[in-house]
């Protein structure tokens, strides 16, 4: 253990489940309290970083609670950890050292997230983190435009809160999109001026817009189109504005195009299937441009998950 247990480093530790609430069909909010060691690792965790949970020893929920589409795959026992971003990190200082509470938003998609449903208050889980490099926030930043697609929400929610707390002068606006109303991991409410807004950002004083592919809530169309209209109307200054995007890869590719069109810099948080999360296995390669035609693979877990959108070769 070359580095000991220090802020800024990563390690393995335990966390206790404080609550695990269903927020929508297949969407849950998990709150964890980290142990003393984990709290030290996480006290300076930044938005865009992530962690890996060992979910291999959790029981399956009862048959009737398993979505029919997942019943077959539910039988598979889990071997590898699973990566999750966090949507909030709260550091409570105390004289025995910091105590950190974490919030995770997750979507039930397969055997591991299915098992997460069975977490109850008091359950102890094994955590590896904090991992990767989060979003960069330059001192000169004046405007932050957050674009969240589907389950890309958590790190941007964290980023919104983080900006309010540590960069209160930055003007932030958030665009959240999903296929349909039910796939938005947020609470929607009617805003004062702009129509439908996201409760979670509203409480932070951050204006927000909603887009759904099927028009079931807010703007009908891709969230990047919605953000594009806003950019056309508002023309933020390239030098002090950054687009922060997290979501499915095609959406990130669109965000990158948008950034290029408006000459803005853009940071995208990427997802890859990960076996280790700590740079050992090379499973999480992201193709990065190193010259006009040359590329190399960087590791999503170690060099990312946040990358400069201009550098990324998006897939498909």
């Amino acid at each position, binding site marked *: *253990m070359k580095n000991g247990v220090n802020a800024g480093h990563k390690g393995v530790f335990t966390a206790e489940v404080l609550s695990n609430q269903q927020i929508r069909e297949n969407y849950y909010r998990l709150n964890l309290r980290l142990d003393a060691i984990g709290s030290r690792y996480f006290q300076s965790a930044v938005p865009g970083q992530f962690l890996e949970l060992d979910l291999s020893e959790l029981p399956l929920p009862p048959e009737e609670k398993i979505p029919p589409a997942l019943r077959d795959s539910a039988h598979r*026992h889990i*071997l590898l950890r699973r990566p999750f971003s966090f949507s909030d990190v709260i550091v409570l200082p105390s004289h025995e050292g910091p105590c950190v509470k974490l919030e995770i938003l997750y979507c039930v998609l397969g055997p591991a997230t299915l098992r997460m449903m069975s977490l109850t208050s008091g359950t102890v889980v094994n955590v590896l983190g904090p991992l990767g490099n989060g979003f960069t926030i330059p001192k000169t930043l004046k405007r932050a435009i957050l674009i969240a697609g589907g389950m890309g929400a958590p790190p941007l929610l964290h980023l919104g809160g983080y900006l309010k707390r540590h960069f209160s002068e930055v003007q932030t606006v958030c665009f959240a999109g999903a296929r349909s109303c039910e796939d938005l991991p947020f609470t929607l409410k009617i805003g004062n001026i702009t129509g439908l807004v996201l409760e979670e950002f509203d409480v932070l004083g951050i204006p927000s817009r909603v887009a759904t592919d099927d028009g079931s809530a807010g703007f009908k169309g891709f969230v990047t189109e919605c953000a594009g209209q806003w950019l056309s109307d508002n023309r933020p200054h390239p030098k002090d504005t950054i687009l922060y995007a997290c979501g499915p890869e095609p959406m990130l590719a669109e965000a990158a195009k948008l950034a290029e069109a408006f000459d803005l810099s853009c940071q995208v948080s990427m997802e890859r*299937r990960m*076996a*280790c999360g700590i740079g*050992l*296995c*090379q499973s999480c390669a992201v193709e990065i441009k190193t010259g006009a035609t040359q590329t190399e693979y960087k590791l999503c877990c170690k060099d990312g998950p946040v990358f400069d959108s201009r550098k990324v070769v998006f897939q498909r």
Partner: protein
Amino acid sequence: MEQTIDLSVDFAGLKLSNPVLTASGTCGYGDELAEFMDVSKLGGVIIKSITPAPRKGNPTPRIVETDAGMLNAIGLANIGLERFVHEKIPILEQLGTVVFVNVAGQMIDDYVQVVRRLSQERAIAGFELNISCPNVKQGSISFGTDPSQIRQITGQVKAACGAKPLIVKLTPQVTDICVLARAAVEAGADALSLVNTFTAMVIDIENRRPVLANRTGGLSGPAIKPIAIYLVSKVYQDVAKPAGIPILGGGGIRTASDVVEFMIAGATAVTIGTATFVQPDTATRVIDNLRNYCERKGIRSIRQLTGSLQ
């Protein structure tokens, strides 16, 4: 029973402080692991496959989980010989453990080139010849299944090793692994490493495509352990023991009990791969628990275990 237990083993002319190594391709270049455990406590590390030129590797997805296992198709992604020498060897020198380098290539000359260059490095203790990686298209798989090719590549690479030992890593997916083991031993292998992963496939039934971009990948993890134990015991009995050549066993090891099982089957040392992804300090935990096993069973030197299958 305040008796010190000797965990050290003699392996291909080297003395290892204990029989536990981290497997090639699962411990990066050795440096990332240092954040999770004291790497100097390991029996050794085996650096991922190094090729003469850098290799980007395969597109993603490169992995997929299976029941008690995972498939990988990394495609021998590595920074290439030159960058390895300049960027990584200085770090490896600081780790304080025995370092083996796994070597891969498309032609015999590729292997020879890497080994010849690295045999001059004091930080490198020896080589593991990867003639069995199932994920490289143009390359090595044919080397791994034909005894005459094994003889040829082993002989030529051994000649480039200088005084350093050469471990030949065998593919398990052959009709008779002993034929190949014998070929490697006859051509000068100082140790045999088994098993590498099994070629396998997972299909996404929603879009009817293989999950891995490379279509197939190598199966590792606990799922393969009983096959690996069998192959180690067979190669030990038929080839390694008569020839006096040690076996580096592996495949699905997660616990000290697993290590003991491999050693009883015939392994002198073992590698831990996939398990490190789940618990980064698996290897050092396992070493501590090996000591407990020996204590409980009244074993003074862990060497007694090797090949002790009744």
